[in-house]
């Protein structure tokens, strides 16, 4: 039968072996098609919903009477709905899509029984939908990052169990002998997330711990879900796409090992630095601060590994959408992590804690790093599973520049505004109401930045919808790039 690998081999008896290997990848892509599409489209819907809630809550901060008559859109609910729809809706769904595709490809194993994953996707999105409606109805648990009411979380557990087990099964059936660095990160994250989520649910919601232990568990979870779930998924994608698009090996295997294990050892201690100044034994905080400083090691190591792979190939950023998004994310990973280590230092934290500086930091991590890498991954994956090209380079360009400019503006604006806010709050001669009023211009710029990012999301959504609906254009096989690459030998283009 016309399996593509045999087809490729039959085209020309002299077909090189790597062409056959690449044809095998095509079969793997086909096996992952429907789960990836379902997770990705659900994620896309949540991205748009989350952007809407983001704008509502952002505008309310400088214009409090905006939509003031709707109980379900009060700031506490809209902001919480924003966080949960972009984290559990967009980020988790797109992380699942990318993780499955990467895991299947790197393991050289087809995704088996994809129907189970589609069922898991339905459970997951049903859980998130009930959760968001619950939050808007006022049932939030009021525990940061775990606001989804307890009646929705069991659905998420069931869904995750299916998803996690399926990814591990895919790894178990691997045909590749070598385990690539992206697989280490994916596999570790697949075990870390259920551990974090179940411990946090049990110790905070179902069988609450007493006293400050609750705060410790809360920040252990909320910080680790970034560092031990989203970060590894984002890094796995960056470790895959940078060398893949450039067609050259990642800089150093030894750096990859060092980066992975130092992240695994140090990150899970770091979350308690959110409680600096709180009623927590001094040694717990100091241990968290020391671990946050030690996080400089994996960050610098990963930065060297990614950025030295890029050296000499920066011109590829001019035409490859995937590479441009992923490298933007990788650079921001370096920046956000070093800022994070600095923010854990007590004297720095005294200024930035409880200010918009922290908000800027969170968005740099979740958006400028993680989400941008995921956008890049989607631009690579979708043409391969749909066997169609992106319909519009202009929309990709709009998406990139809107997202990049929007989030950079957001980050700069709230970092500076937050720093001023923190310095003023530490000054006993400035009344609190004045400090609040001084933040208004910064908050206004934040809304503008949010609108710019949302324009990018709309361009992304239109492009995906267009791509799904478009009939396969006959004969058109050139990838959609920002501009033609300088010299284009066959087989050199993403």
């Amino acid at each position: 039968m016309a399996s593509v690998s045999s087809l490729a081999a039959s085209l020309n008896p002299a077909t090189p072996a790597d062409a056959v290997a690449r044809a095998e990848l095509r079969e793997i892509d086909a096996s992952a098609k429907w789960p990836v599409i379902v997770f990705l489209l659900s994620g896309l819907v949540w991205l748009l919903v989350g952007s809407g809630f983001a704008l509502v809550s952002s505008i309310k901060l400088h214009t409090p009477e905006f939509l003031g008559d709707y109980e379900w859109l009060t700031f506490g609910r809209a902001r919480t709905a924003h966080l949960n729809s972009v984290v559990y809706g967009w980020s988790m769904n797109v992380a699942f899509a990318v993780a499955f595709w990467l895991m299947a490809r790197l393991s050289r194993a087809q995704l088996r029984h994809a129907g189970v994953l589609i069922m898991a996707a339905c459970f997951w999105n049903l859980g998130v939908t009930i959760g968001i409606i619950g939050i808007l109805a006022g049932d939030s648990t009021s525990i940061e990052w775990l606001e989804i009411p307890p009646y929705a979380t069991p659905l998420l557990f069931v869904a995750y169990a299916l998803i996690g087990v399926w990814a591990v099964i895919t790894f178990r059936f691997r045909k590749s002998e070598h385990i690539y660095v992206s697989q280490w990160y994916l596999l570790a994250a697949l075990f870390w997330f259920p551990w974090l989520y179940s411990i946090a649910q049990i110790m905070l919601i179902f069988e609450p711990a007493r006293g400050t232990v609750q705060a410790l568990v809360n920040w252990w979870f909320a910080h680790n879900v970034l560092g031990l779930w989203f970060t590894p998924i984002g890094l796995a994608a960056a470790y895959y796409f940078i060398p893949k698009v450039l067609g050259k090996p990642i800089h150093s295997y030894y750096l990859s090992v060092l980066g992975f294990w130092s992240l695994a050892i140090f990150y899970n201690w770091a979350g308690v630095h959110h409680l600096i100044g709180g009623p927590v034994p001094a040694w717990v905080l100091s241990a968290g601060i020391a671990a946050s400083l030690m996080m400089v090691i994996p960050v610098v190591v990963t930065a060297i590994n990614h950025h030295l792979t890029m050296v000499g190939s920066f011109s590829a950023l001019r035409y490859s959408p995937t590479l441009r998004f992923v490298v933007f994310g990788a650079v921001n990973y370096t920046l956000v992590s070093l800022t994070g280590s600095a923010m854990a230092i007590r004297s720095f934290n005294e200024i930035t804690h409880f200010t918009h500086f922290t908000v800027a930091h969170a968005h740099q991590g979740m958006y400028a790093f993680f989400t941008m890498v995921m956008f890049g991954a989607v631009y690579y994956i979708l043409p391969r599973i749909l066997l169609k090209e992106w319909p519009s380079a202009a929309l990709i360009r709009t998406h990139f520049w809107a997202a990049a400019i929007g989030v950079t503006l957001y980050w700069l604006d709230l970092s500076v505004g937050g720093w001023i806010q923190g310095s003023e709050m530490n000054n006993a001669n400035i009344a609190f109401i004045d400090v609040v009023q001084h933040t208004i211009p910064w908050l206004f710029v934040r809304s503008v930045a949010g609108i710019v990012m949302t324009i990018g999301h709309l361009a992304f959504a239109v492009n995906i919808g267009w791509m799904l609906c478009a009939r396969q254009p006959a004969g058109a096989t050139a990838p959609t790039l920002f501009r033609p690459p300088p010299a284009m030998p066959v087989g050199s283009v993403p």
Partner: protein
Amino acid sequence: MSTDPSSDLRLDQAGASDEQLQRVHAILLREKPEPTEGLSPLPLMLLGLMSALILFSAIYLGRYSGGFDPMVYDERILPGMLEGGAAPAVQDPKMLGKRVFANCIACHQPTGLGLPGAYPPLAGSEWAIGPDERIIRILLDGLSGPITVKNTQFNNSMPAFGTQLRDEQLANVLTYVRSEWGNSAPAVTADRVKQIRAAVTGRTGPWSPEELLKIP
């Protein structure tokens, strides 16, 4: 939703159509090989950075962990600092009393001047700075009836605080009242309040000024 690529109609057709064949072929060929890892050695400066970080973090952890004592919440406290040498920080009873005085400001005012005609002043009041036996009794059980303060007659009633405030709180607030606004009477100790509380056990209802004046 098929997982078997051979059942994909497009791929079947690919064998039959030149256009499709070229298309699949081109998509296959344009992709670079799967990523691999280079074997560049670790840069030497990384070793320096790691050593510096480990050294700094270890010193930080040792210096700011309060001897890993679960009861030490202030990272500036070194182990052994509390035992032996320096006495634990003692809080100023007058400052603590100022907080308790929040119970009193509605009538006696933050200035201690009271409200003329309604509530007597504490600043310079012969009752406030007089013998502590009387003023402690007023706080414990309240006061009712006409009273003369600084040559002015007042007729009102003061509620009892004996049940809602502890001995230390009563002592602290009296210490505050007796040393603020120019008053300079001796401080009142918690033991003194305890002693008087024991002496008036069983009393119900407020004191009258006549009763108090009989106490030396």
